[in-house]
């Protein structure tokens, strides 16, 4: 009977879209969409992403019982759809963004404030078939209030004090203690969905690689795999292994720098210096072997743009040997510095139930018992041939998020060693046919799961594309993590999340 069992069983009530690959996409009518939302109240189906195209809303869900991913779509020609946000709080900002960009109204959502739209675009609802005229003046944004004796507000941003991305934080504080933090984002909204429309795949790949610069490899990988799924192309095995090598190098470079930066925000500068040197070593190998320090545009649909030349494996092994040794020393230093541990332990606590409700992945989820990793589920080559463990902790504080990163760096070092040993030979690029198709893929960035959905037109160009950043489900948790902490611990908490502004704002 429909409505029982797995997500895929439930979705048999809709009409499957034939072109969708590799996971089913099912079109639901109004009644079935409501049924889906009802089922979300009880079922353990994690929200992966929600986006719009034209007058349709799409939601990607993962069934936690079997790991299967499916997409449900709802056509809303009258410009309204019943919001998921009441059942899945992680969807609230996504649906506010859909309203801003496409003009589709999420019904039943309490929070109808604009999100990405600050009233500064030349037209409102810019992606709708018929956009509205520009707003007369930038919008006033009503922050949620906190009232009480001696409460005061601290506005921070959008231009921050350090070398970081722009966003606004509004603190309500009582003395030193944060009573409420509310974020306002959207400052770096670049109109990526609009930029992607109609672009040839090669050009679109360059834009996707710049959705969030620190996760460029993961985005390129997810986009390449989505395009390959749409066109039913399998990249050569060697290309898939080199992709994993690039992804792990990116993960290591980001994690070590994060660890250093968190400690720096706790006024332990030595760690940042040490980690900066370690990161630089990785980036130099990246440049020497692959021609780009951050590995941008190295993964392309069809394979990889750069093959690993002879002797490169030894160069990487040499790097890793010294790296692993110095990294261990730094970890020892972290663990044996009580004043530092004192700052990170118990700070910025995220409850496991909250992490699960928001479907947060990456180190934010893993430090709070959510052990999901796209490399394992749904999994993609070559990770099924590799042996690695996903660290999962229960403490949920800044210290736990550091520990998860440390364990992931060590796991990635092991992965690279295995990749170098098993790397198959052969070509690294498969030709792409020019035809229509629809594909979706996930890739595990250092921050969590990146999802890219793409639809190609008859010329094989991008008709619609949606990149989803893991930060969407982590930003709201930062608001919860800081509550009850002192204002001075905000940088430490914020850095331990290290959410992407650019990936979120699109």
């Amino acid at each position, binding site marked *: 009977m429909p409505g029982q069992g797995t997500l895929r069983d439930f979705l048999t009530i809709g009409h499957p879209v034939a072109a969708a690959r590799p996971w089913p996409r099912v079109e639901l009518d109004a009644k079935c969409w409501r049924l889906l939302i009802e089922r979300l109240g009880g079922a353990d189906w994690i929200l992966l992403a929600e986006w719009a195209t034209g007058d349709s809303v799409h939601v990607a869900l993962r069934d936690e019982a079997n790991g299967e991913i499916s997409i449900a779509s709802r056509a809303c020609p009258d410009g309204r759809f019943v919001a998921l946000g009441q059942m899945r709080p992680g969807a609230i900002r996504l649906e506010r963004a859909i309203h801003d960009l496409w003009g589709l109204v999420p019904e039943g959502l309490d929070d109808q404030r604009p999100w990405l739209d*600050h009233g*500064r*675009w*030349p*037209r409102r609802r*810019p992606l709708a078939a018929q956009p509205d005229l520009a707003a007369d003046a*930038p919008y006033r944004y009503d922050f949620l209030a906190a009232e009480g004796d001696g409460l005061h507000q601290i506005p921070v941003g*959008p*231009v921050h*004090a*350090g*070398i*970081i*991305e*722009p966003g606004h934080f509004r603190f309500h504080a009582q003395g030193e203690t944060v009573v409420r933090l509310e974020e306002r984002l*959207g*400052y*770096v*909204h*670049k*109109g*990526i969905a*609009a*930029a992607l429309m109609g672009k040839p795949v090669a*050009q679109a790949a*360059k*834009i996707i690689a*710049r*959705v*969030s*610069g*620190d996760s*460029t490899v993961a985005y390129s990988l997810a986009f390449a795999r989505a395009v390959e799924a749409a066109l039913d192309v399998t990249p050569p095995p060697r290309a898939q292994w080199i992709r994993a090598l690039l992804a792990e190098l990116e993960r290591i470079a980001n994690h070590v*720098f994060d660890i250093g930066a968190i400690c720096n925000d706790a006024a332990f500068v*030595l760690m940042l*210096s*040490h980690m*900066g*040197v370690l*990161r*630089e070593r990785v*980036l130099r190998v990246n*440049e020497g072997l692959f021609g780009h*320090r*951050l590995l*941008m545009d190295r993964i392309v649909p069809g394979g990889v743009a750069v093959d690993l030349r002879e002797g490169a494996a030894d160069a990487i092994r040499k790097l890793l040997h010294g790296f692993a040794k110095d990294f261990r*020393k730094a970890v*020892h*230093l972290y663990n*044996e*510095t009580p004043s530092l541990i004192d700052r990170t332990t118990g700070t910025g606590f995220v409850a496991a139930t909250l992490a699960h409700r928001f479907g947060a992945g990456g180190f934010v989820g893993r430090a709070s018992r959510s052990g999901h990793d796209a490399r394992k589920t749904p999994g993609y080559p070559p990770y099924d041939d590799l042996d690695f463990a996903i660290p999962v902790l229960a403490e949920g504080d800044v210290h736990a998020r550091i520990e998860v990163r440390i364990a992931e760096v060590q796991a990635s070092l092991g992965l690279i060693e295995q990749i170098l040993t098993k790397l198959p030979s052969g070509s690294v690029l498969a030709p792409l046919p020019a035809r229509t198709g629809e594909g979706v893929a996930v890739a595990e960035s250092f921050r969590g799961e990146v999802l890219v959905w793409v639809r190609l037109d008859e010329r094989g160009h991008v008709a619609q594309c949606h990149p989803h950043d893991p930060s969407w489900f982590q930003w709201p948790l930062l608001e919860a993590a800081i509550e009850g902490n002192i204002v001075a611990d905000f940088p430490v908490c914020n850095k331990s999340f290290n959410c*992407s*502004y*650019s990936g979120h704002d699109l």
Partner: protein
Amino acid sequence: MIPPIAHFFFRHLFKGAFTQKGRVEPDADGVVELAEAVGQAARGRLGRSLAIREVDAGSCNACELELHAVNNPVYDLERFGIRFVASPRHADVLLVTGPVTANMAEALKRTYDATPDPKWVVALGDCGADGGCFAGTYAVLGGVDQVIPVDLHIPGCPPSPKRVLAGLLALLESVAAKG
């Protein structure tokens, strides 16, 4: 027990810093020569002090990553007296990244207005020059010069730390020409 932090200090005492050294080991990628040139120019013209305020006006954060690298012990920008400051009111130079988004344009302009004269603006990265691959969307105004006057562009996607150093040298020369 010797605390682990002592090991780090001893290592630096006996082996020296990670920072690339002077003429002893001429570096293949030219960082050493460049660093010396930046140092001399900075000392000569600004009396060992140049304060930079970084503004992200819409970047993908790759430029920010490389700016962090310029500050790491390997490149160590601060040894030349060039440093990043927290407020535009303390700055001589605004270093702006990204295509300027509609949502950041006012914040960028206000940051510029808050910076005391004389001041210089460096647009960092290909997006800062003309909007890069995001140019033309409804949400992007284009390069930094669409909002505030720009004295120098440093190209690259993102520019490597070496290029950032080269760019700052060029800036110091243009500062001299102006002054």
